[in-house]
């Protein structure tokens, strides 16, 4: 029999016992719904975690440091022929070279320093951190009071809530107010003066190449942030007053690596303690990391952590899928039961079909078509119900999060591949459930079947 005729007959047969077949189909739908709902939570949570981690800037970044930072700086004090080869300085030239690497979208230094902040004439000591422009996409800034910096060179500041509370009992009212930052600017000493200083020193330690000059700069508070935003690797926590990274760089504030350079005698050019290199896509990490290592720097990333994360979620999805499939297994028993009942009821009909020339294959295909139709309908129904369950769980979660003062999240997701896989799975399970009834119907002896009343 042709497929179209087979489908037509199958649908007609299903309509004949509408209630029973609808209940069986609903059973398949519930099975698929439980599977889809479970997996949609797994997928949604994975997407949420991946998105959060990606937006944190940790998983699309390579962290670069001069090799001296890793090997220790005590060697510079030693004298003699065994003095090791001088490692490459992580300076502006190196930064430009890294910027030119393929798939690199941003290179910025980690700037964090202890500073005095004056507000309404009162001094407060806190940690100031430079924030790159790209950090505006970070989830930490969602729902903040005020706004992110208006531009990369704006003299604006964002206060972390704990620090803001030190400044005012009503921290959110600080937006629009000004604070004054007092800091030590690193200022190069003219060449002649440096030579004189070196001559006067006979301890063997090289003299400094810069002086520290106290400065003040006013910043307009544009936002107050509740969370403690990550600012690349090593930037977790600590930053209580956040300013644009570009502005922070222009302040030329003396940092820890300047002191290291001072002690190692490398004061020719101001260098960076570390650089954060952001790439277009996490999959570009390895190539960029290797290229930076070949340039003579230490480079590392948290890529392995994302791999482990993916593995954890795969196992999680597998477990959810197994639990979700249990309901489908029960539903498949429903299909077997329904079709076996149909054989008993339609015994005479099967006999007539065979007497009219239906081959065993035609009869079995008819039952497979009926099982498949229940699978398709139940699958589509199940995907819709599963999607709704996922939405309901997300809604309930967000109501709870909202009451806790937290931002809404999307914890369930039904991507197209999940919907298609679920539909395919429903059809496969239904057809598998149809194997026994179909073969039993096909084996019926037409003479016996026609005798059946």
């Amino acid at each position: 029999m042709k497929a179209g005729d087979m489908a037509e007959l199958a649908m007609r047969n299903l309509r004949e016992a509408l209630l029973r077949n609808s209940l069986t189909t609903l059973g398949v739908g519930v099975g698929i719904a439980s599977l889809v709902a479970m997996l949609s939570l797994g997928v949604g949570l994975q997407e949420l975690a991946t998105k959060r981690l990606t937006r944190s800037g940790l998983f699309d970044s390579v962290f670069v440091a001069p090799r001296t930072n890793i090997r220790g700086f005590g060697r510079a004090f030693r004298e003699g022929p065994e003095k090791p080869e001088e490692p490459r300085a992580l300076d502006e030239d190196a930064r430009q070279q890294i910027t030119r690497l393929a798939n690199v979208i941003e290179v910025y230094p980690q700037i964090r320093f202890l500073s005095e902040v004056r507000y309404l004439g009162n001094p407060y000591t806190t940690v100031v951190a430079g924030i790159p422009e790209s950090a505006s996409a970070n989830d930490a800034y969602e729902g903040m009071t005020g706004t992110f910096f208006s531009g990369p060179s704006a003299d604006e500041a964002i206060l972390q809530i704990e620090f803001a509370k030190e400044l005012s009992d009503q921290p959110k009212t600080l937006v629009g107010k000004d604070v004054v930052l007092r800091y030590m600017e690193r200022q190069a000493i003219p060449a002649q003066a440096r030579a004189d200083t070196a001559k006067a020193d006979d301890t063997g330690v090289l003299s400094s190449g810069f002086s520290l000059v106290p400065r003040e700069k006013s910043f307009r508070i544009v936002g107050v942030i509740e969370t403690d935003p990550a600012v690349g690797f090593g930037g977790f926590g600590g930053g209580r007053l956040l300013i644009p990274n570009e502005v922070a760089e222009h302040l030329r504030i003396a940092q820890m690596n300047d002191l290291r350079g001072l002690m190692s005698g490398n004061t020719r050019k101001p260098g960076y303690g570390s650089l954060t290199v952001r790439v277009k896509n996490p999959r570009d990490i390895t190539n960029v990391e290797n290229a930076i290592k070949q340039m003579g720097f230490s480079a590392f990333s948290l890529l392995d952590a994302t791999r482990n994360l993916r593995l954890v979620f795969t196992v999680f999805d597998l477990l959810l899928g197994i639990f979700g499939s249990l309901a489908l297994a029960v539903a498949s028993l429903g299909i077997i039961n329904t079709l076996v009942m149909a054989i008993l009821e339609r015994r005479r009909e099967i006999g007539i079909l065979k007497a009219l020339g239906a081959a065993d294959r035609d009869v079995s295909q008819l039952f497979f078509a009926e099982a498949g139709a229940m699978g398709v309908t139940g699958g589509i129904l199940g995907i819709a119900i599963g999607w709704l369950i996922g939405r309901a769980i997300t809604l309930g979660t967000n109501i709870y999060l909202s009451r806790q003062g937290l931002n809404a999240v999307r914890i369930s997701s039904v991507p197209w591949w999940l919907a298609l896989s679920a539909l395919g799975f429903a059809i496969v399970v239904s057809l598998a459930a149809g194997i026994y009834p179909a073969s039993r119907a096909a084996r019926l002896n037409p003479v016996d079947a026609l005798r059946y009343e």
Partner: protein
Amino acid sequence: MQDGQSAIRTDKATRHYRLGEEFIRAVDEVSLEVRAGEFLALLGSSGSGKSTLLNLLAGMDRPTSGAIHVHGRNLAEMSASELAQHRRKIVGMVFQAFNLLPKMTLEENVELPLRLAEVERGERQARVREALERVRLGTRLRHRPTELSGGEQQRGALARALVNRPSILLADEPTGNLDSANGEQILTLLREINQSLGMTIVMVTHERALAERFADRVAVMSDGKLIEDGVKT
């Protein structure tokens, strides 16, 4: 198929089966020949084996031993799918209980063998109408079997048996569930089909008078054996 050629030939066709402890010889070494275009009535009392023999000729059952040749091909040696093809293309069947599917209209019932034979949809309608016109049911296409009288149902079943244009029509007690007027009408139709289309007909019945009146030849079975085979008196 031309007159005189053998359409059906059974050679010691035997069908035995076991019913509990009892060994039943439903058909016992029956040798019979039916010429093409012949109308054979197979007479016998209940349990004589005539319906079993008809099922063997239809390819719905297999002989325990012996051979059943239809148009020269031995049904005993055919595979299940070849037997299905035999039922689909070579023979048409009419049953005592009509056996129309109640969920389908008369038109759909008659169309069913065409679906099984994978006849194009466009051709089906014309053939269904032609078959129903032949049995004078052209106006009852959309009726379900329950909306038809017994005689109409049997005529519908006859149209279904004819729609694939088989060369052999096998009728198992076609008048058994009908009153005498409707029974006579069916037999008149069978005779008409036999004569106008030259179709070979084997009809099982237990009504000798009707058999002798409409059939070319009457064969009688008893206890699974063919006890009489000859032209009608």
